[in-house]
C-alpha cells in the first residue's frame, strides 16, 4: 500500500468516525436594496416637417404623426414645471424662420389633453397618479421665403423639467 492510499484510508476513517446522524443547521442573511425616486425625460420623436417649398409656410400640428414628442416619467402624482428653449430660426444653407409653437400634454400617449404654448411661461403638469407619466406633443410652423435656399435645415427643441415640490 503506497503512502497516498494510506492517507486516503485515514481520511475515510476520520470521515466515518466523524459521521453521525444527519443534522441540520441554518443561518440567515438579509437582502437589501434602496429604490430611488427617479425623473426620466425622453425625447421620443423629433419634430419633422419633411419637404417644404419656398414661399409656402408649413405647419405640423400636435396631432400630426410627425409632431415632436417627449415623455416625462417620475413620482406618481407629483407636479412638474416644464419650460422650453425654442429656436426662432433653423440653420442650414441659410436661415429658416420657425414659430407659432403649439403644445399638448396628457396622461396618456395621445393628444387631446391640455393645450399649452411651449414658447410661453412655464407650464405646470401633474404626473399620472398611477403610472407617473406625462406625454407631450409639440407642433410649429416654418415659413420659408420665396428665395429660401434648398438644403437641410435643423434646430433643437430643449425641454426643461423640474419638480415644483422640492
Amino acid at each position: 500500500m503506497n503512502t497516498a492510499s494510506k492517507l486516503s484510508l485515514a481520511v475515510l476513517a476520520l470521515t466515518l468516525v466523524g459521521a453521525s446522524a444527519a443534522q441540520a443547521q441554518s443561518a440567515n442573511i438579509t437582502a437589501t436594496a434602496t429604490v430611488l425616486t427617479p425623473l426620466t425625460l425622453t425625447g421620443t420623436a423629433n419634430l419633422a416637417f419633411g419637404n417644404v417649398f419656398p414661399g409656402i409656410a408649413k405647419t405640423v400640428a400636435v396631432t400630426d404623426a410627425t409632431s415632436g414628442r417627449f415623455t416625462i416619467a417620475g413620482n406618481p402624482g407629483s407636479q412638474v414645471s416644464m419650460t422650453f428653449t425654442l429656436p426662432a430660426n433653423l440653420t442650414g444653407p441659410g436661415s429658416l424662420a420657425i414659430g407659432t409653437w403649439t403644445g399638448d400634454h396628457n396622461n396618456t400617449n395621445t393628444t387631446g389633453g391640455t393645450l399649452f404654448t411651449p414658447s410661453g411661461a412655464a407650464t405646470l403638469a401633474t404626473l399620472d397618479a398611477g403610472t407617473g407619466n406625462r406625454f407631450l406633443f409639440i407642433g410649429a410652423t416654418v415659413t420659408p421665403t420665396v428665395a429660401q435656399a434648398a438644403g437641410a435645415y435643423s434646430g433643437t427643441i430643449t425641454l426643461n423639467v423640474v419638480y415644483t415640490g422640492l
Partner: protein
Amino acid sequence: MKRTNRMLAALLALTPAAAVAQGVIVAPHAVFIDHATRSGSITLYNPGENPVEVTVSFGFGYPTTDSAGSMSVEVADSAPANEPAATAWLQAFPRRVTIGQQERQTIRLLASPPAGLPDGEYWARLIVSAKGGQVPVAGTPDSGAITVGLTLEVRTVIAVVYRKGSLSTGLTLAAPSATYANDTVAVRIPMTRTGTAAYVGTARVRVLDAKGALKGEDERALGVYYTLDPRVDIPVGPLAPGTYKVVVTLSTDRGDLPPKAVLPAPPARDSVEFTVR
C-alpha cells in the same frame, strides 16, 4: 447645393422618426449633502437603444408662486449675491459623458465650501442635459428640396441641498382662502418658512360638506424656501347650495424622500369655509 448639404439631406431622409427616442433616467430626484461628507451622487441610466450624450451643470433656483398662485422654479446660471447658494462650490464628476444603451453612470458631486462657512442650508440645482446623436427625419432626398427637422434635448433639473450644522425648519400658515367656480374649489395657502432650513413636506387639502362628507381632495409636495402661496384646484363637481369647509394640513411627510433627508417640524393645520348659493 454644396455636397455636404446634399449628404445631410439624404441622411435626414433616411433616418426613421421612430428611432429617435433618447433620454436618461436621473435618480434620485434630489440630493442631500452633509457638511461632514461633502459629497453625494446621482445615478444616470440610458433606457434607450442608442447612446446618449449627457452633460451635467449647476444652476440656482427654488419654487416660487406668482400672484395667481401658480408655481414655478426659475433656474438661473448663478445665484443672486444674498442667496445661500452652493452653486459656485459644487462640482460634478464627470461633467460630460456618453452613456451607452441600457448602461448606467454614476455622477459624483463634491463640495468645496469656503472656509468658515456658517451653519445653514445652501441650495443649488443640478441640470442633467441629454441628447441623442441622431438627426431628424425629413423628406425625400432631392437635391433641390428644402428639408426641415428639429432634434430634441431634455434637461432634468433636480434640487441639491447642502447642510451644515444643526438645522431646523417650520412653517407659519396664514389664513387660507377658498373660492368655488366651474365645479372646482380654488384654495390659496399662504405660507412662510421659519427656522434655518427650507420646509420640505406635503400639503393635504380636503373639501367637506356641512355633514363632514368628503367632496374632493388634493395632496401636493411642497418645498417652501422662503414664502409660498400656491393655488390648489380641487375638482368637486356641482355643489348643492350650502356651507362647505376646506381643511388644510401641512406636514413633513414625504414618501418620495429618504426619511433622514426631511427635517421634522410640527404639522400645521387650518381651515376655511365657503358658501355656495
